[in-house]
Each structure stands twice: as C-alpha cells, then as structure tokens.
C-alpha cells in the first residue's frame, strides 16, 4: 500500500569486548558452564558494591567519537528497578537521564545508491542480565548468571528509517562500525549484537507518528527484516480494517515468521529509575576523550572513500570491500603485493575468493588463502602468463592444494601462449582441417568466427592469449 509510510527506530545492544564485567572482575568469555563466571558482585550478594570498568567507558567513548556524537563530560549511572530471576539485584544498572554519548549519526547507502543520514539519539552503558534456562529442567527454571554484568552499549536511533531494508542497512552499518572499533565481536548467534525495533505506520504525508509496537530481541539481520515487514503489514491491515494499533511490546517468532504480543503499555513496568548511589558520576575530561580519539582506526566510510580515490573502485565495490575491517585489510594487502590492477584485485576478492570462503563458511582472516598468494595469481594475469579463464582453474588448484600460483601454472603447464608464430601455426592447422567452414566464413557467415576461436583454443589447450588470437585469426581468415 503506497498510502502508508513506515517509521522505524532501532535500539541496538552491543556487548562490549572487555575482558571483565562492567561492575565486577568476573570474566566475560562466552560458553563457560552455568554460573562459573558469576562472582559475589554478579550474584548481588548482601553488602557487595559495583566498581565501574574503565575499559567499558573507553569503548563507549570510542563509539561516540566514531558517530560524531557528543561525549558527556558528566554522565550518571541509574538503577532500573524490576523483579526478574535472572536480574540478581532486582535492578539493572544503566544510564537514564545522562548517558555517556548523545546526538550522533551514521550514513547508510540506499538501494538506489543514494545516501541517507540516520540520527542516533544516544548511546549508553549498562549491564546485561543473566539467562533463565528451561531445557532439561522439567517444572524448574535454571538461572545462569554468567552473562549478568556483561557490559553493553545500547545505541538508540532516531525514528529515521522508512523501510525494513533501511533498518537492516543501518544495523549492518553499526555492526561494521563496532567491529572496526574492536569494541564488540558482533557475534549475533551468541547474542553479542542484537536489537529491538520500534515500528509504526502513518498515512503518507502525515506529520504525526502512528502508535508504535516494540519488537524485542532480534538477533539476525534476516529476522529484523522479516519481523519489521510482518509488523508493518499487520499494522496496516489493522488500521485499514478500522482498528487501532496498541502500544505494546511484541516478540518475533522466527519459526512462524510472525510477531506476538508480549505485554501491553498498561502492563509495562514502572522502572523507578534513580541515580545509583553506589557509583559516582562519570566525569570525562578533554584529555581523556582526546586520548581515545587517538586510538580510532580509519572508519569504514573513510576507508571506502579512499578506495574509490586511490584504487579507482566504484562506490559499490568500495562499500563491499570495507564492510569489515579484515576484508578491507586483506584487499589492501593484495593490492600492495600486486599493484598493477586494483580493480582486478577487487573483482577477485569479491568474486572467486568470497565465493570460496562462503562455501566453506570461512572468514577472510582465516588464513586459508593469504593475500600474498592471491596477489601471486593476479600478477600472472596482469603479465599475461595466464588468461582470466585459466586463472580460475589455477585459483581452484591453489585453494584446494594450498599452493602458489606459479607452482600450479608450472606443474600444469598453463602458461599462456603469446608467441605469435605458435598461435599462427595453430590457426593454420585449424583452417586446413576445416575447409568447409572456412569457405562459408569467407562467403559471409561472420558467426563462424566464434567456431574458429574455439577450435584454436582447443588446439592450444586454452592457453592462447585471447587478444592476440582474435587479431591473428581475423587477419588469417580474411585471407
């Protein structure tokens, strides 16, 4: 329905990659046996007190600087009070009125290639809760507090997105960014990066926002897209049939592909936020902020712009190659070793290499095919030792055997034939063997040119230099 406009805001929770928890010395590593990483502070024992992990603050500031946000000189931790078994203290320590980061933004690239700025209202630090376990515990609830107290940064966007695709593009952008900054491992299966989506619809042209529903805990890009699309359709259908959207929290069921009501606004908790008297306000001076700024890496947008400028790549290719820091680094390492043709390098990294990695579910940093080795292959294409087509064969051998390009070319005798007399000899033989086709060609059947190319290639084992072959063949055929 084109008469409706979708309005989306995301709250992204990124788990910070600190070694210890935000308010205790417990380790944060994933996958330990239940409660093995929960000390007395995490368990909320009587008398214990929180002590802020400075590293978490540094990481939040790093994020703030990367999204051009204001870093608060004075921010405050507050208690969000509610009862839940996996919330040991009966409150979550978070930031409420005075977050550490406010008023930033990011740019996303839309499908038509245009760019759109998405506002970021705030980013604040908070502790994660634990997990309730039900599996294998009939009639009981188990509680694992390993995750309790893990530092999170919650990144709250403005309601600036107008489609599920935009929401996914934004979420991917944030995902890329936090990994560039090395403040979050971005592992969505383990819950290190997840989001809540606030979704509403309104009549096109309307200034007023519609009533929104909040979809909780989406932990994959695909789920975000599907959940939003489902929710938008649900709301439009409701409104068009004369109903009204209720403000509520909903859960996405990936098996059924639908969202379900979790609790209404009336049932919502009154969290009774107030400043946590156990923690001092966080005071950050310019020197600290500047010291964090000095650790900022080249950011994805800066890197992409540089790729366009230095390597002559398209904006699209530059975007793909900078989607992760590892991929960008790999690409640059390839270009450094084989500087002749950066575009060719881009095609190989995004094409054959990406496909091969994908097939085996490997990351670019896996070391399966070091950049220098791929560069070795590209050099042989550039110096015309092999053709692009042969190169694919060489690549496959390199991939499966872990060998160098030159070794494969040598062993299989795949060097391109660039010796004109050798190519001419092959052409002469083919012409002699196919007098009928030759006569037809000369009689005006131009299409037979392709037939002769194929025959000569076959005769040379595919090694004839294609450009040379074309030129020589055209000359000989025309007599």
């Amino acid at each position, binding site marked *: 329905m084109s008469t409706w406009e979708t309005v989306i805001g995301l709250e992204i929770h990124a788990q910070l990659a600190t070694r210890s928890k935000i308010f205790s010395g417990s380790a944060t590593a994933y996958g330990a046996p239940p409660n093995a990483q929960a000390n007395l502070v995490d368990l909320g024992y009587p008398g*214990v007190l*929180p002590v802020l992990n400075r590293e978490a603050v540094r990481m939040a500031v790093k994020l703030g600087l990367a999204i051009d946000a204001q870093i608060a000189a004075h921010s405050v931790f507050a208690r969000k*009070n509610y009862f839940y*078994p996996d919330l*040991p203290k009966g409150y979550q320590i978070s930031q409420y009125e005075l977050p550490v980061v406010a008023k930033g933004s990011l740019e996303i690239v839309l499908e038509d290639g245009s760019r759109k700025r998405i506002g970021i209202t705030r980013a604040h630090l908070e502790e994660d809760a634990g997990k309730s376990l039900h599996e294998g515990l009939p009639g009981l609830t188990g509680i694992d507090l390993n995750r309790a107290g893990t530092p999170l940064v919650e990144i709250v966007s403005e309601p600036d997105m107008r489609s599920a695709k935009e929401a996914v593009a934004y979420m991917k952008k944030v995902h890329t960014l936090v990994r560039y900054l090395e403040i979050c491992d971005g592992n969505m299966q383990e819950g290190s990066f997840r989001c809540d989506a606030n979704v509403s619809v309104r009549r096109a042209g309307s200034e007023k926002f519609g009533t929104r529903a909040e979809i909780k805990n989406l932990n994959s890009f695909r789920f975000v897209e599907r959940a939003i699309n489902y929710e938008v359709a649900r709301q439009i259908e409701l409104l068009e049939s004369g109903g009204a959207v209720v403000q509520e929290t909903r859960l996405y069921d990936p098996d059924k592909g639908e969202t379900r009501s979790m609790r209404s606004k009336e049932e919502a908790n*009154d969290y009774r936020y107030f400043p946590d*008297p156990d923690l001092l306000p966080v005071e950050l001076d310019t020197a600290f902020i500047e010291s964090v700024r000095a650790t900022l890496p080249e950011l994805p947008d800066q890197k992409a712009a540089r790729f366009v400028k230095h390597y002559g790549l398209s904006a699209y290719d530059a975007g793909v190659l900078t989607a992760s820091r590892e991929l960008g680094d790999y690409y640059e390492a390839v270009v450094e070793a084989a500087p002749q043709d950066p575009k060719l390098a881009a095609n190989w990294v995004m094409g054959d290499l990406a496909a091969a990695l994908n097939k085996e579910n490997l990351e670019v940093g896996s070391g399966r095919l070091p950049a220098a080795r791929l560069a070795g292959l590209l050099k042989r294409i550039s110096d015309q030792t092999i053709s692009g087509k042969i190169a694919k064969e060489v690549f496959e051998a390199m991939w499966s055997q872990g060998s160098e390009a030159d070794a494969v070319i040598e062993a299989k005798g795949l060097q391109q034939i660039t010796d004109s007399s050798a190519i001419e000899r092959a052409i002469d033989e083919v012409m002699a063997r196919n007098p009928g086709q030759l006569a037809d060609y000369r009689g005006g059947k131009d299409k037979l040119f392709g037939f002769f190319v194929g025959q000569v290639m076959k005769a040379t084992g595919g090694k004839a230099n294609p450009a040379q072959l074309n030129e020589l063949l055209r000359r000989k055929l025309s007599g």
Partner: protein
Amino acid sequence: MSEFHKLGLTALAAGLRARKFSSVELTGALLERIEASQQALNAFISVLREPALAQAAAADRELAAGRGGPLAGVPIAHKDLFCTEGVRTTCGSRMLGNFVAPYDATVVAKLKRSGAIVIGKTNMDEFAMGSSNETSYYGPVRNPWDPHLVPGGSSGGSAAAVAARLVPGATATDTGGSIRQPAALCGITGMKPTYGRVSRYGMVAFASSLDQGGTLTASAADAALMLREMAGFDARDSTSVDTPVPDYVAALEEPLKGLRIGLLREFFDKGLDAHNEQRVREALKVFESLGARLEEVSLPHLPLSVPVYYVVAPAECSSNLARYDGVRFGHRCENPRDLNDLYRRSRGEGFGDEVKRRIMTGTYVLSAGYYDAYYIKAQRVRALINADFISAFKSVDVLMGPTTPTPAFALGAKTSDPITMYLNDIYTIGANLAGLPAISVPCGFVQDLPVGLQIVGPHFSEARVLTAAHAFQRATEWHTRIPAAYA
C-alpha cells in the same frame, strides 16, 4: 583479674601488648559477661565463643612473639550487618536468618588484620531501620541503664554491649543517627565518620548515600584508635574517598584553645527536653572553660532534614532490598506456586513491618508521576542543607548541640506512631544528609539516664571532632559511668 571490663579498648590493647594478661583470659571473661547478660539485654544475635577463643589463643602467640597489630587480642563485636566470613549475618531480619556470609566486609577484614578478636554479632533494628532496636526479628535489645527502656537504634545491640562493658568496642553504622542516638541513650561514645571515610563494602546496605560505618566505644580515645584501624580507601567501594587516614590517636592531645564552636540554633528548639538542654549547656560551659569560643549559628534548611531523609532513605532502601527475592540466598517461602508467589511470600514472610513500610514509601516516591515531587525535590533540599553546613563551617570549627531530644524512652512507647519515632533522629539526620563526621559523647544524666552531646565537624575533620570530644572527656567523667547492674 575480673576488672577487665572497666578498661577501655586502648588500655586493653596496651595491657595485652605488655603481657599483663592474655587474650584468652580477657576473651573468656568477656564471653562470660556476654552470656550472663544475654537474657536481660539481648545485645547479641550470635556469640562466637569457640572461634573467638581460638582467635585469642592465636593472638596470644603473636603477642608472645612480639608481633600483632595495634588491636592484637582485643575482643570486639560487629553489628550484624557487617558480613563475616563463615558466620551468620542476619541484619536483624528473618530474611537473612539463614545467611552465612561467604566473605568478610572490608571493615571486618581491616580490624582482623589489626589483631581484633570477633567475639560476636550484635542485635540491631531490622536492616538498620529503626531508632529503638524494637524492629529486630531477634527481639528487642534493652537499655543497660534500665531494662524497661530502649537502647536506641539501629545499632542498639552494639551500644548496649559497650554500655554494659560486655565488649570494649563494637562496630556500628549510622544512616540517620544509628550510631550517635544509641550512644547517647546508652551513655557511651559513638563516632560516625565522614561519608566515604570507612568502606561500605560488605556492610549490608540500607540507604547507600547515607550509610556510614563507625564505632561505639566507652571513650573518644578508644574511638580514635578503633576508627584509625577501620578507616581508609577501598577500591571495592566507589564512594570511599582516597585520602590518607591521619593518626587520630596521635592528634588527641592537641590543644583545644581557640576552638570556635557553633551552637546550632535549630537544635535548641521547642522539641528539646528542658533537662536535656540543661546538660548540653553545662557541657558547652566546660568547653568554654577549656578555651573554646561559643557562637550561635543558624542552618535555615536543617528543619527540613527529617522529611528529606524519609524520602531519600526509603527510596534507596526500596531498591537495595530488592535483591532479597528468595532466589539465591535468604528466606524462601515453602512450596511457591509460581514466580510471583515466590516473591510475594518470601518477602512478605522475610521482612518485618518497618522494613515493609519503608520499601513501600520508597517505591511510592520513585514512581512515575511522583519522582519529581518527592525524590528530586528531596535531593534539592539535601543540597541546600549541605550548603548550609559548609557555609556555617566558614565561621566555626565545629557545631555542637544535643544528640537526641530526650533520654531513653520506654519499650513500646513509640512503636505505634512511626512519625514520633522518626523525630527521635531530628538532630542526627543532618550530618548524614551532608555526609559530615559527628560524634556523640555522654554529657550528664537526667533522672539517672545518660544524655548525649553531639559534635559535628566539616568533611574529613574526624581528628578535630575526636580531639574536641577527648578534651571534654579529660575534663569530665560522664563517659566512665557504668550502669550499676554491670559495674
């Protein structure tokens, strides 16, 4: 030697070091006094006879070898909200009736390192909420001066134990007067340091921005020694302050001459019992005779301290006590039907009425729609009260006044009217709201009941406050009086 109890903390520490008697002898004698008094006073929730004697024997070995800290071999008691490893820590509540702390509070660990023997855990108002020690799940504590009267609270057990000379010193905490008020009502010396001077780690929280650990002892000199051993920065408490601890004992003998004393006009108001006032004014004359100068000062916002306190403290307590949910430790109801039933009955059964009243008050003042009107406004007034104190300390060195409006009152006299009970802390709450050090010292008797003089100093002026109190005690003998039944 059966006169141990007449010696204070300082004298006992010196006697032990001089090997005049052993820690085992001393500890054994005090254990006998504790056990003999328990039925009449109910000052202790746990008496740690065997472990205390074992610690005493170990202390004797240290002392024999010429080692041991400043408090080596001296038995003390801890208010039962300081976590003590392997020992039940109840906070005077049924909720923690089965709670054995797995760690030592920083204060407990520091005093252990100083050589002190932990002889027991003292009774207290439930979660330190009360001014009469009548809210304890473990029964009320009685005043050693008259068993029909309350000892004050919430550190009533610690105060009664020191007043009856069952121990030479006990830890205590003060959120709105819980050290100074029972000290006044029991005729002993109660020292509440500056907020942040003593670590709160392991001290079960009532109201985090107000709670401060301190001492109950017979004299200011004993308080100086004990506080010196307890105080100091603790990286595990973000609100503890990283500034060096002066040697309070060494500072005690500094001259008082020229001390400018501010008399708080707001403290000498119509709520103050005339006899109490007389004792306090007599004490002020003693200070004058020691060379101090008196001048009247006014803290205009101070009369608002009780309402401010009863917004801030319940707000923080409602959140601090949310962790007692029957899930990980503490009381859990039988056969909960579901999660809500587990919460409702575990908390309903585990907490007493006063605790529930404050949790409900605190929940209310933090609720949406009321937060600004109550909590925010209270914090603003709190800032004004703090500013009043700071401005008063520009012209005077310390402030003095009564600790309480009246001497000890009868058990049950105020339990039916919480507001009257709350008003008993009217003179003590200001120092908590502003985080100031304050001491109560005995300054005479009204109808055979002790009366307390309160001395309040600027932030981190413990040495000055203790020195003033010590000078007064050198000139008077009120602090040496022992209730007849325990003499």
